[in-house]
């Protein structure tokens, strides 16, 4: 049905498509047009799925025409981080070692989205194997921040954040291991959510750090993230770490406000190392909460100061093991004997494996693999990895103590606004980006970044933290903040 305006939010699109007011094909075409016009400036995608998207949209329209209901995400264009397995569609993790690899299966979340009527429009760029905070570690070129294309979009889910900020899709999926959804959400001025560990199935998410990884949504509105999460969250028998109980839906109570809620500002994350412009917005958010009837106080989670250290032992350790499978035997890149090869005798599998991994992994991935290998190796386990696991317990305990006094916590999402492409080359400096986000991954709790103002034209997000399975409350608070601040329109809008 052409002629009707194409809505811009997922909620509105789904309603309109289900009601037959607008066709899914028109919706996807409108978004593909924006992508085609501006993707070159942003490089949010590793691959845009023109044909696949149109075919899916056509299917949705057929369902509507036949009187059926395609689902709560009917016709909604969605971009998928390129570490989510999509059957028959390249899933590269932005790495040379998986360039062109087509999985023979779909991730659970991909299946759920399809079942809800969503239309995948592309696979988005990321830091290689989700390791990074700027998307500059991609083997296929960096993504640019749509708000200021000289800046990074953040990472590792930079492409997914940028896609929403640019207006290429109303929603996207990313993954968050130490802040890889929330930090780019903050840098790009969009909503980004990391759910409770185990709330969303990891089956089909290419693993980085298994005990920390979670899939979550990006969106321009709080409601849209709630919509996505209500579709993709839930028990999956194919993921042993999946929470067995049914989850309380988020959308129904979204507008319930924060009256009477106790909200604590995490003091350890408001001091040294955080830009004053950022802490100022956190204070402003606190005021917005108070105005809405919440009680805001100061919270202390002392162990979070050890979060960065514990994380940079635990995550690389798990990653070093998760990435061992990339050995050139079964899929992906394989390097055969080269002319300048050292040594004589037949080219062996051991040499092939080493040559493949050396050629296929970028520097940051190699660094983390080596760091993790070291932390696990004989003689070092107790001092490093083993100890980090205990620190993790301390962090969880400190959060639990804080949540006895407060219903929600508040903090900056990132220590600064988006920095310039190429500005940060030192790994440790880059790691400091995650100081506010890492603790929640370690504890397994949910957290989300909500855009709340700008500094020098660059977005600043504030982070709302909740105890495990506290998503409904967390989103209520997010909705309050959203209402208190002027919305950031996408960089480019779909033609109406």
């Amino acid at each position: 049905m052409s002629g009707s305006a194409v809505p811009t939010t997922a909620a509105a699109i789904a309603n309109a498509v289900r009601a037959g007011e607008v066709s899914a094909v028109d919706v996807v075409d409108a978004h593909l047009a924006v992508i085609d016009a501006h993707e070159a400036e942003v490089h949010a995608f590793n691959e845009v799925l023109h044909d696949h998207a149109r075919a899916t949209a056509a299917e949705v329209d057929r369902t509507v025409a036949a009187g059926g209901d395609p689902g709560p995400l009917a016709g909604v264009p969605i971009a998928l981080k390129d570490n989510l397995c999509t059957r028959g569609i390249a899933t590269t993790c932005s790495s040379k070692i998986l360039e062109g690899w087509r999985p023979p299966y779909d991730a659970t979340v991909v299946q759920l989205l399809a079942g809800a009527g969503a239309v995948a429009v592309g696979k988005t760029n990321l830091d290689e194997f989700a390791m990074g905070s700027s998307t500059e570690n991609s083997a296929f070129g960096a993504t640019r921040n749509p708000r200021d294309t000289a800046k990074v979009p953040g990472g590792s889910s930079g492409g997914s954040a940028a896609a929403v900020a640019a207006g290429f899709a109303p929603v996207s999926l990313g993954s968050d291991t130490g802040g890889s959804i929330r930090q780019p959400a903050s840098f790009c001025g969009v909503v980004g959510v990391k759910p409770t560990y185990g709330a969303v199935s990891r089956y089909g998410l290419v693993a980085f750090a298994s005990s920390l990884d979670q899939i979550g949504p990006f969106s321009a509105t709080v409601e849209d993230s709630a919509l996505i999460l209500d579709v993709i969250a839930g028990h999956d028998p194919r993921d042993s770490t999946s929470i067995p109980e049914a989850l309380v839906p988020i959308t129904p109570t979204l507008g319930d406000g924060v009256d009477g809620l106790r909200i604590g500002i995490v003091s350890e994350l408001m001091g040294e190392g955080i830009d004053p412009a950022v802490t100022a917005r956190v204070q402003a958010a606190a005021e917005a909460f108070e105005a809405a009837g919440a009680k805001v106080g100061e919270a202390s989670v002392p162990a979070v100061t050890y979060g960065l250290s514990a994380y940079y032992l635990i995550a690389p350790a798990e990653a070093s093991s998760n990435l061992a499978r990339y050995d050139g035997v079964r899929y992906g890149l394989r390097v055969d004997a080269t002319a300048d090869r050292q040594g004589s005798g037949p080219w062996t599998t051991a040499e092939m494996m080493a040559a493949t991994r050396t050629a296929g992994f970028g520097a940051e991935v190699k660094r983390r693999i080596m760091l993790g290998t070291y932390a696990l190796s004989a003689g070092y386990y107790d001092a490093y990895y083993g100890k980090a696991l205990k620190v993790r317990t301390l962090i969880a305990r400190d959060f639990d103590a804080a949540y006895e006094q407060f219903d929600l916590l508040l903090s900056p999402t990132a220590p600064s606004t988006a920095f310039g492409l190429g500005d940060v080359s030192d790994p440790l400096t880059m790691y400091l980006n995650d100081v506010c986000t890492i603790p929640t991954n370690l504890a397994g709790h949910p957290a989300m970044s909500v855009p709340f103002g700008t500094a020098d034209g660059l977005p600043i997000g504030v982070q709302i933290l909740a105890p495990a399975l506290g998503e409904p409350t967390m989103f209520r608070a997010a909705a309050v903040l959203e209402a208190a601040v002027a919305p950031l329109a996408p960089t480019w809008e779909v033609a109406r």
Partner: protein
Amino acid sequence: MAEPSAATPAPAEGASLTRDDVAHVAHLARLNLTDAELDLFTPQLAAVLEHAQDVEALDVGDVPPMSHPFPLVNVLRPDEVQPCVDRDEVLAVAPAVEDGRFRVPPILGEEP
């Protein structure tokens, strides 16, 4: 059950990561590093580990380690056959195939 051999000696008090350490873990991880890369990575990794000294120095006494955020136990599935994946789809993306199997160069090491 084979015991892991102590291939690297335990660190001395406050010892930092050496070039040899990096070369060793690179080998364990099947990564070939050039001399230039060894020179580049060693201080970078040492800096991260040094930053993690605060963890190393922490007295965590009898705090139990946390491998999982939540105390799930006994997640099991029934012993029932489900369809496998199509062999052709899997082999189609394999680097080298022969007789329905994955072909690899000669394996010189014996299986551990």
